[in-house]
């Protein structure tokens, strides 16, 4: 594909309750940070994509409530309902269309203002599934049972994901839940829905992320250092859980294969330096790693145990702390992209992975990983070097 880059990122701190911020306040903060980061003004932004969800925002046409704060007035502004990575995908296609040189993408939500379980129950089919009490946690617990049964992954190994990610968050000043935990702490935390304990689940969070995407002609016009988008893909699976093989993630496998192929990566397990994945629950980090080909199928638990995915391991996963340490719905995937951008620029501070050159970010939308969006980013634009 034509070349495009991310030239600016901005994130608010992720918090349990940003009592002093409206949606627009959060967007204002993230957008201005992204503009400063890119060395741009709002006048350099050609078009805007906001990402939000009407139920989480407690209003219909929720995107319109943040148009002012994202500088969308009198600009071509469009809205995506779903994870921020999907908004970014749309923003990228606009930048590549030739009609726009730069796209500002925002994603926000304030979980603190609503009751998450009521909203996720409403995501299930109203005729067949809502009445039996399904919600995000219980549905994912069923998926976790199926994944553990298929692979032999253990509850202890799930707990290690929580220990690792909350530990990583101690170096990330924007994370909501930096914690020193032991496997025992996780296993002794309240059992919400077997096999998921409270500390196997990501928290309810508030936060916003903004990124600026530019086509090749504009990418180097500003002072911000571009990080190059080398491969992107997304793929969806069936809506009903029963129509899928819940113990596997074939749509993620397909999205990852095609994103890696686009980036010219043959063996992602050895060619990727850092990964930020959508660990809404502990088991998901392991399941996604396997589906993406970053680890052999069924082996992520034991690889984690041997330290492969720690900050100093073979493939550091979620060095920022991941969703387990802060999960603003909608913004969560865009934050994964922004974290990889920081890593590839060498600006991740206390959780910097030394000499990270290539990274992968993943976003998820839908129940139990129905659809996935995978981004492969590179510190250098190799095509340019060769040319």
């Amino acid at each position, binding site marked *: 594909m034509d070349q495009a880059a991310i030239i600016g990122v901005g994130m608010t701190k992720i918090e349990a309750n940003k*009592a*002093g911020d409206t949606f627009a306040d959060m967007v204002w903060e993230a957008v201005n940070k992204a503009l400063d980061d890119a060395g741009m003004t709002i006048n350099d932004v050609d078009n805007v994509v906001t990402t939000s969800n009407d139920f989480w925002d*407690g209003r219909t046409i929720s995107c319109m409530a943040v148009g002012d704060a994202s500088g969308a007035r009198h600009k071509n502004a469009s809205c995506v309902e779903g994870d921020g990575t999907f908004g970014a995908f749309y923003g990228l296609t606009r930048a590549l269309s030739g009609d726009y040189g730069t796209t500002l993408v925002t994603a926000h939500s304030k979980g603190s203002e609503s009751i998450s*379980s*009521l909203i996720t*129950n409403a995501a299930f*089919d*109203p*005729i*067949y*599934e*809502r*009445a*039996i*009490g*399904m*919600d995000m*946690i*219980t549905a994912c*617990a*069923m*998926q*976790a*049972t*199926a994944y553990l*049964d298929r692979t032999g992954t253990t509850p202890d190994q799930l707990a290690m994901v929580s220990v690792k990610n909350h530990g990583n968050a101690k170096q990330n000043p924007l994370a909501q839940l930096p914690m020193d935990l032991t496997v025992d702490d996780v296993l002794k935390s*309240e*059992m*919400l*829905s*077997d*096999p*998921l304990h409270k500390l196997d689940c990501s928290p309810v969070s508030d936060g916003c992320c903004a990124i600026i995407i530019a086509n090749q002609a504009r990418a180097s016009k500003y002072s911000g250092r571009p990080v190059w988008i080398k491969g992107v893909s997304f793929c969806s699976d*069936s809506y*009903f*859980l*029963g*129509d899928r093989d*819940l113990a596997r993630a074939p749509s993620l496998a397909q999205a990852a294969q095609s994103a890696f192929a686009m980036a010219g990566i043959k063996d992602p397990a050895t060619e990727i330096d850092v990964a930020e994945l959508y660990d809404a629950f502990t088991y998901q980090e392991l399941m996604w790693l396997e589906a993406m080909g970053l680890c052999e199928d069924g082996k992520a638990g034991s690889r984690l145990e041997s330290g492969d995915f720690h900050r100093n391991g073979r493939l550091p996963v979620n060095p920022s702390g991941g969703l387990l340490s802060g999960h603003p719905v909608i913004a969560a995937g865009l934050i994964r992209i922004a974290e990889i951008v920081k890593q590839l620029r060498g600006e991740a501070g206390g959780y910097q992975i030394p000499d990270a050159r290539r990274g992968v970010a993943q976003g998820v939308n839908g129940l139990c990983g129905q659809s996935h969006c995978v981004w492969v980013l590179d510190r250098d634009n190799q095509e340019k070097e060769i040319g």
Partner: protein
Amino acid sequence: MQPTKEDCFIVEGKLALPYQYFAGRTGSRFLIALRDEKKIRGIRCEKCNKVFVPPRSTCERCFSDISQSWVDLEDTGTVTGFTVVRYEEPYQPTKPPYILALIKLDGADTPIAHIIKDIPLTEMKLGLKVKAVFAEKTTSTIMDIDHFRPQEDG
């Protein structure tokens, strides 16, 4: 200036949104059979050789209209996924702890989600053979299957 907590008003709100969900022509026939005959029906895609439940009028695998290929399913099946729900929410059909499961009915290829009762939580396992227990009083909803219970010989 950073606002202090006292400056931050919370305005209590509620989205009360009545909605009439059409079950679809296919879904309606499914619910009518469940209500009037205590029968669980699925739909077969002849091309894909798959029996879907809940039934749907099109097959997303081969993208064809399958709305007329009804098949009767057994009221027995096998558990392919489950969890024990231990926290309480207003939308739950029964008081926790209770078992939510994916159940592949005999004669179907896609499991449906429902609840399982009449088994100690510690004995719940994948592969359990279960049987539908129909509600005594119909509500013309999926809850006309009240729950599933272990098969006597399972």
